[in-house]
């Protein structure tokens, strides 16, 4: 390495830095120990470098720059936070609204005003029987009635009380209760009635469609609108037998 090469290398040397660790710089530095001219140049060079470093570092940032950077960033953060809050609130509102819709839809059948109690069922069936219904099948044959009801998807695997089996049947109809089919079997205890008339009715429905039914087959008597009714359960069915009269009247058919 000659003197000029050493100067070229040492031009990149800054006193007091890690530049001396560079192998080329280290070699050039070693040469300054043995060459007086280079040593003199190097001394001047170090003074120049130190002076220039100081000049570059004399540049001061304008007053308030730091505060401006921080405050504008904080403002940006607040703005983003507000945006995020709004988005979060909108999402939460949407989720809440969706949940409310879901709850309303789920609970609608329970709170739609439809009374699905046994009393309501008895009243509705009693009113049906006494308000001019039309029998969909006119027959005196209980087997035909059972077949017709089964084909229509209405309850057909019912069991008649022994006394009721002896009463002449007039026909049947299919009614509706809470979206379930109700088998309505019409009996005629008064022989003077016309063929399409009846005065005793048995209603059979899936017991699950009526709320709050006791888990027993104990008879329950009640005045249900214009009829007196007896209700009982057997298997998965709820039976309601209704006629005009009183408990004694209806007991004769059970």
């Amino acid at each position: 390495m000659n003197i000029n090469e050493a100067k070229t290398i040492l031009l990149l040397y800054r006193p007091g830095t890690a530049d001396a660790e560079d192998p080329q710089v280290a070699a050039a530095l070693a040469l300054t120990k043995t060459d007086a001219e280079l040593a003199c140049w190097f001394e001047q060079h170090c003074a120049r470098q130190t002076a220039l470093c100081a000049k570059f570092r004399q540049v001061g940032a304008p007053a308030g720059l730091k505060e401006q950077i921080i405050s504008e960033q904080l403002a940006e953060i607040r703005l983003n936070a507000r945006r995020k809050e709004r988005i979060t609130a909108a999402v939460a509102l949407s989720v809440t609204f969706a949940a409310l819709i879901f709850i309303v839809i789920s609970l609608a059948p329970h709170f739609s005003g439809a009374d699905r109690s046994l009393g309501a069922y008895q009243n509705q069936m009693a009113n049906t029987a006494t308000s001019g219904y039309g029998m969909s099948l006119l027959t005196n044959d209980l087997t035909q009635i059972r077949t017709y009801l089964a084909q229509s998807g209405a309850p057909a695997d019912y069991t008649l009380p022994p006394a009721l089996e002896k009463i002449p049947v007039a026909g049947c109809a299919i009614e509706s209760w809470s979206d379930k089919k109700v088998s309505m079997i019409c009996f005629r205890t008064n022989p003077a009635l016309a063929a399409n008339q009846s005065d005793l009715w048995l209603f059979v429905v899936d017991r699950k469609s009526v709320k709050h039914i006791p888990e027993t087959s104990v008879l329950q008597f009640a005045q249900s609108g214009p009829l007196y009714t007896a209700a009982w359960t057997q298997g998965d069915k709820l039976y309601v037998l209704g006629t005009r009269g009183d408990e004694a009247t209806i007991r004769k058919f059970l």
Partner: protein
Amino acid sequence: MADSPDFETLVARHYEPLYQFAFSLTREEAEACDLTQQTFCVWAAKGHQLRDVSKVKTWLFTTLHREFLGSRRRQKRFPHLELEAAELELPVISPDVINRLDAAQVLDVLKQVDDIYQAPVALFYLQDYSYKEIAEILDVPIGTVKSRLTRGLGKLHQLLAETENQPPTP
């Protein structure tokens, strides 16, 4: 890995050297402020992606330099010159001449140096960055840094020497 410093601490620690670097590149206070602020904005948005917290300072300087280049919309490729290829005439300038100048005059002189040499020279004098760190910040090979420094420092010293012969500004 150390925890990342909070934003205020980061700004307090680095805004001044970043501004000095920005000012040495732009020679415009407003533009240097904008560059410095933009650098911290980029940090606020992307700083969390930096895994090595010890590289924060280098990351900030790199970002500032990129923002500067972006603001200049410079598309030209810089030639890669190795140190050995650089032709150099070593200037002779007295340290007293430098000491008589103020910082603004020195930076005015730097402004006269070709653009591609300004950033490495500024980093060289400002922060005592190693050649390797300057290469990382400028995203160029270390050989390129050395050649640019050699040429840039040579030109800077030459221009400073010329100021010695100029009459003082009234």
